[in-house]
């Protein structure tokens, strides 16, 4: 018999266990807090390690790139510096316009295809849809240069197999759009599937229970509900595509004038960075930082913009 227990009455196992739990919990609390702090510390270190390269990139881009941003940079086309003025390198308006046209056309066909395919993946549970999903997943992991080769074969040279004959149209902006668009489709597909699947089943069922066809529910209920997610999906895919270099490397040719027609050879920002950075002229090499900064700026604006817009849309609906 121990203290606190009256002779003759057996100890209450529940009270004993309560005391034991409290004692052990108290005893191990310090150690658990210590481990917890250590783990939080490790997370902090990991976060820092991840952020260091990011900020290093942004810093060097800003430091070396911002001074090239002037009126000429945005309005003139490249020119080779002369001995008299080694800094007379013109601007990169041709590359900016080129990127705009190439990526714009790519988005124009990739977004509808991607969203419709995403809707199919979200709404169907057939064998075909799971095959399609796997294919999309594999395609997102495909080295992007393969898409460049594909576009080169299909659009630049032309296709002539199995009795099908498609004439090539040569180096052109449209070939770049094709490569970039094919790159965007699986990304949009997967992301919009996730967004559409986020719509709770009871909401779908509420529509079905009213006698609506699934296509009507998709149009009137599912897509509007998932819209913020869809917009984010599309813009993130687009911002990724804007920076892609490999797919357009050997399909868009080159152009030193502002070219609006996608049937002609074009310039583009990622490619211009590559060309400027490998040029023999110091000023051109330095200017590549300015283009790189502008590219990052565009991607950042699209990213932030899509997030803000989605958040705003979400709030508006409350």
């Amino acid at each position, binding site marked *: 018999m*121990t*203290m*606190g227990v009256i002779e003759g009455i057996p*100890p209450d*196992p*529940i*009270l*004993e*266990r*309560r*005391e*034991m*739990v*409290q*004692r*052990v*919990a*108290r*005893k*191990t*609390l310090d*150690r*658990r*807090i210590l481990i917890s702090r250590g783990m939080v510390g490790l997370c902090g270190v990991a976060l820092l390690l991840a952020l260091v390269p990011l900020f290093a990139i942004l810093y060097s881009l800003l430091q070396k790139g911002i001074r090239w941003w002037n009126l000429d940079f945005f309005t003139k086309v490249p020119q080779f510096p002369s001995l008299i003025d080694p800094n007379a390198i013109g601007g990169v308006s041709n590359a900016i316009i080129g990127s705009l046209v190439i990526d714009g056309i790519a988005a124009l066909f990739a977004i509808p295809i991607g969203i419709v395919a995403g809707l199919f993946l979200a709404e169907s549970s057939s064998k075909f849809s799971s095959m399609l999903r796997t294919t999309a997943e594999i395609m997102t992991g495909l080295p992007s240069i393969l898409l460049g080769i594909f576009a080169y074969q299909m659009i630049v040279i032309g296709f002539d197999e199995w009795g099908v004959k498609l004439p090539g149209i040569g180096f052109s902006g449209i070939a770049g759009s094709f490569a970039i668009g094919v790159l965007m489709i699986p990304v949009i597909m997967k992301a919009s599937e996730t967004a559409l699947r986020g719509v709770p089943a009871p909401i779908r069922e509420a529509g079905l229970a009213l006698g609506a066809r699934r296509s009507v529910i998709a149009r009137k209920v599912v897509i509007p509900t998932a819209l913020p997610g869809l917009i984010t999906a599309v813009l993130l895919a687009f911002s990724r595509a804007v920076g892609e270099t490999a797919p357009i490397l050997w399909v868009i040719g080159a152009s030193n004038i502002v070219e609006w027609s996608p049937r002609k050879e074009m310039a583009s920002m990622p490619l211009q960075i590559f060309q400027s950075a490998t040029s023999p002229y110091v000023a051109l090499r330095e200017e590549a930082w300015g283009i790189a900064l502008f590219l990052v700026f565009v991607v950042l604006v699209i990213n932030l913009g899509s997030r803000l817009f989605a958040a705003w849309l979400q709030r508006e609906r409350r």
Partner: protein
Amino acid sequence: MDPSTMIRVSTEMSDQEGDPRLGPISMRFEDVSVTFHGRTAIRDVAFEVPKNKVTSLIGPSGSGKTTLLRAINRLHDLTKGAVVSGSIRLGDTDIYKGGIPATLLRTRVGMVFQRPNPFPTMSIFDNVVSGLRFNGIRKKSVLEEAAESALVAAALWDSVSNRLKAHASTLSGGEQQRLCIARALAVEPEVLLMDEPTSSLDPISMRLIEELLGELKSRVTIVIVTHNMQQAARVSDLCAFFLMGNDRAGEQIEVAPTKKLFSEPDDPRTLDYIQGRFG
């Protein structure tokens, strides 16, 4: 047991008596208010919870019952912008000012939620002893003993004793909820909070759990939120009635022994509410 390791965890407030009809008290609310981002969800709660009794919190949606219940377990600590003011005393401990770590408090105040929420990847046994393991108790014999005791108390032992290694998801909804009760009981808390524990269950499972409460109160003080007034009348000894005020903040209207509150309430609003539902 070695006397030097004996720790007083008894929570009797022997010098303080609540309602004389209901004996010693376990918890005391004084001017308790909860605000979220400056908006008051419930204000000025002041009453005493009798020890080893069932106390029910009733009132319409938005009257702050669940908010109050979650405050007892300090679940609002995890919500950004939530502020709990006033004092909630558990025994000698002011749970918000006493400097007691929330994790320790939660071993003394258990909680059962509206929907059964067993840990999906754990077996029945692992679910029951999870609270003990989280708090550093590893000894197998202790875990087994505690698991059996808790499962017996939750009236689940007979149906699961031969399949303790089975996944918790193999149980029916009612069984899962009793598993959650067993899981909460295994750490031997002093207070068990229940947030509408039967609202997602069928009537038979509901009756089983209601019957359970009567047996459990010798072991643990129970505070239960319920929308079902018959349930409050059936299971509780003390009943606290809340309403939403003009500024949409919950207010305590009346606290009385359940029999009195349901037969001759002091406040006309209590009568209105009860009659509206029973009428």
